[in-house]
C-alpha cells in the first residue's frame, strides 16, 4: 500500500475539494464493457446523485468504489492520493462505506451485533456487550430508531427498519464517503423522511455522499449534484436545478439501435382476451395490478429493474403465497398454487425464468432430459415414458429452435449460453403453452441468438400464443411488444401502446415522470 501512495504523489493533479476521483476507469466482464473510460469525482460535504438506465454502469461504478470488483484499467484517487481497494474491507478502512441494495445484515444476529460487526468494542479481548448495546443505542438514535431494542434479532424487523439499521451500521464505520445504492426502495414514507434528515445532517458534517436512486422526486429533495451515466460512460455532471426532468431523460437515453426486429402485425380488431388479471396484490411488492392479455398479443413489462415485474410473473405462475386479486384464463377464474398447476392443460402457462442456471436447467443432466422435463407427464403411457414420441418431439424442437448440440445425451452444461437458453425455451414450448411468461430471457446471450428468439416470439404470437415479456432492455420492449406496461414501486403505473412505445416514454415512465412534461413541444419552452 505504501508503495502506491508514494507513486501517486507525482500524479496529484485535480481540484482539492474532490474526496474521491476516478480517472480513466474501465471494467470489462468477459467481452462486455460495463464501464468505459470513466472520469468521475465526488466532493466533500455534498450529496451526489447518479442516474442511468438499467445497464448504464451504475452498479459497476459502486462495486469498484466499494472494493467488490477491481477495475480493468484506470486509477482511483482518494483525497488526491492514488489508491486501490483489494477488498470491501480495504475500502471501508479507507473511509468508503457502501449500503447495498441487497442488505448486508446477518439475520440471526442481534441489531447490536450487526451494527458493531466489524469493530466491536472489547474488554479483556472479548466483546463487551454492554458497551456494544450502548453504541448501538446511540447510532439507532441517530437514525431515528429509538424504538428498536439492540438485542432484537434482525430477522424480526421489517424491511424498512432493517434498512435504517443498515445505515446505523454504516455510520459506525465512520465513513468519509457513504454510498447508498437504491437504499430507500424498501422504506416506508415515514422512514424516507428520516433518511433525508440524516443525510442532510451528515452532509453538513462534511461527509461525501453518493446516492443512486431512480426516484426523481428524491433526487430533487436530496441531491446537490447529479451525474448521468449511459452505456457505461459518464455523460454529464451538473448542479441540481440546472436541468429540467426532460433534459435529464434525454441524457439518459440515446443508444444506438443494433437489433433488427420482425415487423409487428397491424391489428384491425381487438384480440380475444385470454388472461385477465384484476387487482393483483402481494404484500408491498405488488399493489393492485390489473392487466389484460389477448391471444396473439405480446405485452412487455417495463420500468427499472426490481419494481415488482419478477414478482408479478412469479405470482401468475403460482410460486408466491398469499396473492390476492383475481386471475381469469379464458374467462374462467383460475386459482394457481404451483408451477405444476400453472403448466397443466387447463391453464397452459409457461415461465422462462431469469436465471437459467438455477431455475431453468438441470445442468448435469442431458439435453434430452431437460427438454422433456416439463412435458414428461404428457409423454407417459401408464407408468413408462413413450420414448419414440419423446424423441420425435425433441427432434422437432431442436430443429424449430436450431439448437446446436453434439448429442442429445450430452449434459446441458456443455452447451453455450445461447443454446442453453434455447433448451429452456424448448422445454416450455413442448408443453404447448398458450400463455408464455418471459423473465428477462435474453440476458447474457449473444446477438445472433437474441435475433432468433425475437423471430420465434413473433411466430408464436402469430400462432395465437399470448406473451408477457419482462425485459431490462428497453430496446427489446420497443422492438417486440404490442403494448408495454410500466412498473414503478410495485404498481402498474402506465401502459404504452403502438406509436407511444418510445425509449423516451419508457424512460420517463420508469422514473414516474408525467409524459406531458417530456413532449418535444414543451421541451422547447
Amino acid at each position: 500500500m505504501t508503495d502506491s501512495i508514494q507513486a501517486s504523489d507525482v500524479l496529484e493533479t485535480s481540484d482539492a475539494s474532490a474526496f474521491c476521483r476516478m480517472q480513466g476507469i474501465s471494467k470489462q466482464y468477459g467481452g462486455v464493457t460495463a464501464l468505459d473510460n470513466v472520469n468521475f469525482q465526488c466532493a466533500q460535504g455534498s450529496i451526489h446523485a447518479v442516474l442511468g438506465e438499467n445497464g448504464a454502469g451504475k452498479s459497476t461504478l459502486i462495486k469498484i468504489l466499494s472494493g467488490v470488483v477491481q477495475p480493468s484499467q484506470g486509477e482511483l484517487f482518494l483525497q488526491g492520493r492514488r489508491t486501490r481497494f483489494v477488498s470491501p474491507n480495504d475500502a471501508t478502512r479507507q473511509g468508503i462505506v457502501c449500503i447495498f441494495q441487497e442488505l448486508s445484515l446477518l439475520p440471526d444476529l442481534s441489531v447490536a451485533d450487526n451494527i458493531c460487526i466489524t469493530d466491536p468494542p472489547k474488554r479483556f479481548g472479548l466483546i463487551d456487550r454492554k458497551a456494544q448495546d450502548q453504541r448501538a443505542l446511540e447510532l439507532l438514535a441517530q437514525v431515528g430508531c429509538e424504538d428498536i431494542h439492540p438485542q432484537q434479532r434482525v430477522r424480526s424487523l421489517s424491511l424498512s427498519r432493517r434498512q435504517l439499521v443498515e445505515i446505523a451500521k454504516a455510520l459506525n464505520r465512520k465513513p468519509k464517503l457513504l454510498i447508498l445504492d437504491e437504499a430507500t426502495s424498501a422504506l416506508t414514507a415515514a422512514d424516507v423522511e428520516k433518511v433525508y434528515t440524516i443525510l442532510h445532517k451528515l452532509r453538513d458534517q462534511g461527509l461525501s455522499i453518493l446516492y443512486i436512486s431512480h426516484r426523481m422526486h428524491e433526487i430533487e429533495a436530496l441531491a446537490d449534484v447529479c451525474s448521468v451515466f449511459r452505456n457505461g460512460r459518464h455523460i454529464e455532471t451538473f448542479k441540481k436545478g440546472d436541468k429540467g426532468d426532460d433534459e435529464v431523460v434525454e441524457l439518459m437515453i440515446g443508444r444506438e439501435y443494433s437489433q433488427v426486429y420482425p415487423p409487428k402485425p397491424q391489428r384491425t380488431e381487438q384480440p380475444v382476451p385470454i388472461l385477465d388479471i384484476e387487482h393483483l396484490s402481494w404484500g408491498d411488492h405488488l399493489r393492485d395490478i390489473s392487466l389484460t392479455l389477448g391471444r396473439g398479443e405480446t405485452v412487455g413489462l417495463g420500468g427499472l429493474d426490481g419494481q415488482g415485474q419478477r414478482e408479478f410473473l412469479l405470482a401468475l405462475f403460482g410460486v408466491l403465497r398469499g396473492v390476492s386479486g383475481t386471475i381469469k384464463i379464458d374467462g374462467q377464474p383460475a386459482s394457481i398454487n404451483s408451477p405444476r398447476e400453472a403448466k397443466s392443460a387447463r391453464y397452459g402457462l409457461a415461465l422462462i425464468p431469469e436465471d437459467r442456471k438455477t431455475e431453468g436447467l438441470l445442468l448435469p443432466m442431458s439435453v434430452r432430459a431437460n427438454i422433456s422435463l416439463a412435458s414428461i407427464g404428457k409423454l407417459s403411457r401408464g407408468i413408462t415414458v413413450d420414448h419414440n414420441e419423446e424423441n420425435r418431439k425433441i427432434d422437432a424442437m431442436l430443429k424449430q429452435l436450431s439448437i446446436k448440440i453434439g448429442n442429445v445425451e450430452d449434459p446441458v452444461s456443455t452447451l453455450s449460453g445461447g443454446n442453453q437458453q434455447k433448451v429452456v425455451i424448448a422445454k416450455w414450448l413442448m408443453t404447448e403453452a398458450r400463455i408464455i411468461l418471459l423473465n428477462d430471457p435474453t440476458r447474457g446471450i449473444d446477438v445472433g441468438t437474441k435475433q432468433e428468439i425475437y423471430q420465434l416470439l413473433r411466430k408464436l404470437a402469430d400462432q395465437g400464443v399470448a406473451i408477457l415479456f419482462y425485459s431490462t432492455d428497453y430496446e427489446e420492449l420497443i422492438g417486440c411488444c404490442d403494448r408495454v406496461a410500466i412498473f414503478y414501486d410495485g404498481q402498474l403505473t402506465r401502459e404504452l401502446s403502438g406509436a407511444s412505445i418510445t425509449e423516451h416514454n419508457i424512460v420517463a415512465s420508469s422514473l414516474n415522470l408525467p409524459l406531458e412534461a417530456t413532449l418535444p413541444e414543451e421541451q422547447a419552452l
Partner: protein
Amino acid sequence: MSGARMTGLRLWLTHNAGLLLAVLVFVAMFSLYISNHSAGLTVPVLTTAANKAVLLALVAMAQTLPVLTGGLDLSVGMIFILANCIASSIVVGNPFMTALGIVCVLGAGMLAGLINGMIVVYGRLQPIITTLATGAIYYGIALLLRPVPGGDVNEELADFMTYTLFDTVPTSLVLLLVVVLLVWLPFRRSELGRGCYAAGSSEGAAYMSGVNMNRSKLAAYTMAGFLAALAGLLLTFVTFSGEASAPIGNTYTLNSIAAVVIGGTSLYGGVGSAIGSIFGAFILRTIDDLLFVFDLPPLWQPLFQGVVLLSAVSLGALRVLRVRNRLELFR
C-alpha cells in the same frame, strides 16, 4: 428503564426458546428417572449418570461449532476414539509425564480439527465429505496405534476424574462446567465466535461486512477437535484402556448431531449454542436410563431417540409455514 429491561428479558426468552425447552424436557425426564430409581437421588447414581452424559455432552459441544458455521463435522467421533487410543498409551507415569501426555492428546485433537478446518476453508471442499474422509483417516491411525483393545492410564487421576469432589459433586460435571466457563462462553463472546455465527447466518452478508470468516471457521473446527479429544481423554479415565472401535466412534458422531439439533441449534447454521447441545446430550442419555428404570427392553432405545429427534426437528421446521415465496423453500 425497567420497561427496556423487560423487553430485554422477553427477547432473551424468545431467542433461547430452543435451549430452554431442552432444559425443561431434560429436567422432567431426569426427575422421572430419579423418582422411579430404587435408590433415589444418591451420589453414586448421579455420578454414573454424569460420567456417561458428560462424554456425549463434550462431543456434542464439539459438533456445535462447525454446525454453527453452517457446516458439519462427521469426524468428531473418530477424533474422540483417536484421543482415547493415544491417551491409553501416554497418559501414564509420574504427574509430569501424565500432564505432558494430556497436553499431547489434546494437541493431537486440535491438530486433527485444524486439518479439517484447513481443508474446508482453503480447499473449499464440502465439510460433510471432508470430515467423512478425515474421520476414516483418524480412525485408521487409532487402529494402527491400538490394534487390540488395551493400554493403561494414570489410575489416581482416572479415579479422581470419574468420582466426586468433596464426596458430593461428580468431577466430570465440574469438568464440563469448567469447559463451558473457560472455553465456550469466552469463545461465544469473542470476535472469532461471532464470525462463526455470522458465517452460518449469511455468508454473503458476512463477507460484505468484512467478517474474517476463514479465521472463524478454522477456529471452529480446531475447537471441535479439542473438545472431542477432551471427551476421548475422559473416556480413557472411565474405561482405563483404549479401544479403536468404529461402532463407538460412529455412534458418538451421529448422537452428537442429534444432541445439537435437540438442543435448539439450527443445522443451517447461525442459530444455537453449545449449552443447548449439552442438554440435548443429557436428554439422549436419560432415555437409556428411563428404559432401565421402567424395565423396558434396551432394544427400544433407538425408537425413543428417533421420536425425540423427530419432534425436535419438527419444531425447527415450523418456519416453513411462514414462507411466502415458494422458491425460498428450496434455498
